[in-house]
């Protein structure tokens, strides 16, 4: 068998989502890779230019369909900076809480997909089951399981419902036990270690050069986390540690994500305590009407009325479950943002694919790409 190109995607079990990894192989050895993106390009940045700020939220949920809340937070932070609005303290804590729950949801989903990639059957369902609890919680206060539409400019749509905090505490306890099971199933398995140790190695210097962020970067020993370095929402008031490992391989990424799950539970507990003690409004008071409401009143031809929007520009950065995400929001006085630029962490992580795929075997591609945690929705936007 001589060298050949194979297309892993766009409809292939390895690609969680629509993208195509073209691989040149010799036997089972990977010689060259060429990711092809764009199958899921929906033009979210362009559509945002035609929508009211609060309506852009509906798009952000769909940017990354497993981490919708994180992207809502990201955009809303940028938009609030551009519109010169300050949310109340309680909204910040609720956002922190939501984002950490979303991190758990996303990481558990990652776990499920990743173990499925290396052939573990049962833990896939365990991951889905435990993510469902998080989704139940989301549903109980946002009203939807994946597309929340919860954040608004100037705060969040509604406060937490009664009984939420107890329920969330129970879920936290349950999840911590399950994380131990996850570790037993993976780290405790010799085959898993054989499969993942020393795979997809990308050392710290290469990671930084390639612009890689998030758990992949931290697995190489670089302690960079936007939550610590440039705190937003209430992250400057909660205690947590940045999970790092120094293997730089698939196992290290697994370790980092598992530790982040535990840290998320830790942050959530602090948030729950704070929210229990400090009631208050979840929406900024005396907000101009068009900001708080999800709609803008209209004149003759739809959005006819020009309003005095203060010009502004905002740059927000958050630590999304996959890494450092940026939003650049330009407001030029219309009712819609003039330009929304979103930077997805997976976008850069994928662009470095050749650095961590070449030289391994075809059978190694699913675990390596699984450890990258690809979500095509936010790459293509």
């Amino acid at each position, binding site marked *: 068998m001589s060298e050949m190109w194979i297309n892993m995607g766009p409809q292939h079990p390895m690609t969680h989502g629509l993208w195509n990894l073209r691989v040149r192989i010799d036997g089972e050895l990977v010689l060259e890779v060429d990711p092809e993106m*764009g199958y899921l390009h929906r033009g979210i940045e362009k559509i945002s230019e035609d929508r009211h700020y609060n309506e852009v939220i509906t798009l952000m949920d769909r940017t990354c369909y497993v981490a919708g809340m994180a992207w809502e937070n990201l955009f809303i932070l940028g938009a609030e900076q551009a519109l010169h609005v300050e949310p109340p303290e309680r909204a910040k804590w609720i956002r922190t809480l939501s984002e950490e729950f979303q991190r758990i949801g996303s990481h558990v989903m990652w776990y499920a997909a990743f173990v499925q990639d290396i052939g573990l059957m049962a833990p896939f369902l365990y991951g889905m089951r435990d993510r469902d609890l998080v989704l139940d919680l989301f549903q109980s206060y946002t009203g939807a399981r994946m597309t929340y539409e919860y954040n608004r400019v100037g705060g969040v749509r509604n406060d937490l419902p009664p009984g939420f905090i107890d329920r969330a505490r129970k879920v936290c306890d349950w999840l911590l036990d399950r994380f131990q099971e996850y570790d037993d199933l993976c780290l405790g398995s010799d085959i898993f270690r054989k499969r993942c140790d020393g795979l997809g190695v990308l050392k710290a210097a290469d990671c930084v050069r390639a612009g890689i962020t998030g758990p992949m970067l931290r697995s190489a020993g670089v302690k960079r986390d936007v939550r610590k370095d440039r705190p937003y929402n209430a992250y400057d008031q909660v205690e947590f540690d940045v999970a790092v490992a120094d293997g730089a391989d698939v196992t290290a990424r697994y370790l980092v994500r598992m530790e982040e799950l535990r840290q998320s539970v830790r942050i959530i507990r602090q948030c729950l305590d704070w929210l229990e003690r400090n009631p208050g409004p979840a929406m900024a008071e005396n907000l101009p009407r068009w900001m708080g409401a999800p709609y803008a009143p209209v004149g003759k031809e739809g959005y006819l009325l020009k309003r005095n929007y203060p010009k502004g520009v905002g740059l927000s950065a958050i630590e999304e479950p996959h890494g450092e995400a940026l939003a*650049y929001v330009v407001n030029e006085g219309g009712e819609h943002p*003039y330009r929304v630029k979103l*930077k997805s962490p997976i976008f*850069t992580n994928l662009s470095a694919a050749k650095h961590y795929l070449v030289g391994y075997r075809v059978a190694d591609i699913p675990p390596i790409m699984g450890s990258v945690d690809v979500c095509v929705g936010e790459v293509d936007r």
Partner: protein
Amino acid sequence: MEASARLFQRDLMGKLSKRFPTGFLGLDPFPGTFGRIRFDPAIALELFREIRDVHAFEHLAMVAGIDWVERREVLYTVWSDVHRGYLLLSAMLPAERPHIETATTVWPSANWHERETWELVDITFDHHPDLRNLLLPTGYQFHPLLRSFKLHEPEELEVKVRHV
């Protein structure tokens, strides 16, 4: 962070204006970051090198293109692990044939960002190693993030694929 950031800003401004007497156009304050450097696209490559090597901004986070109708802005967001903060570099390009030197030689992570900016905002990056379509189909003639590209008018969006 505020006082030290302001100190750093002034320091950076002084150094850069000394190093680039003509190309460096100023450093505007920008909330939450060290500020926004405006520079002439002619000095792009040297400025990138300077920013990365001398001032230790080794992580390129984002490249954004903005269409201001009469001109186009290309915006680089860089992060420094040493100073723990973002810095924005912005260059204004003319609306006709906007082009700037690629940053891939300085920050390899700029590769896909620049491909995306090229196809969506129509800014050419000279000497880019691999300037192909990334998100749009190969040969797509339009640049959707230009202000002249209107939504809600489907008859204008007829896909014209150049067969090669």
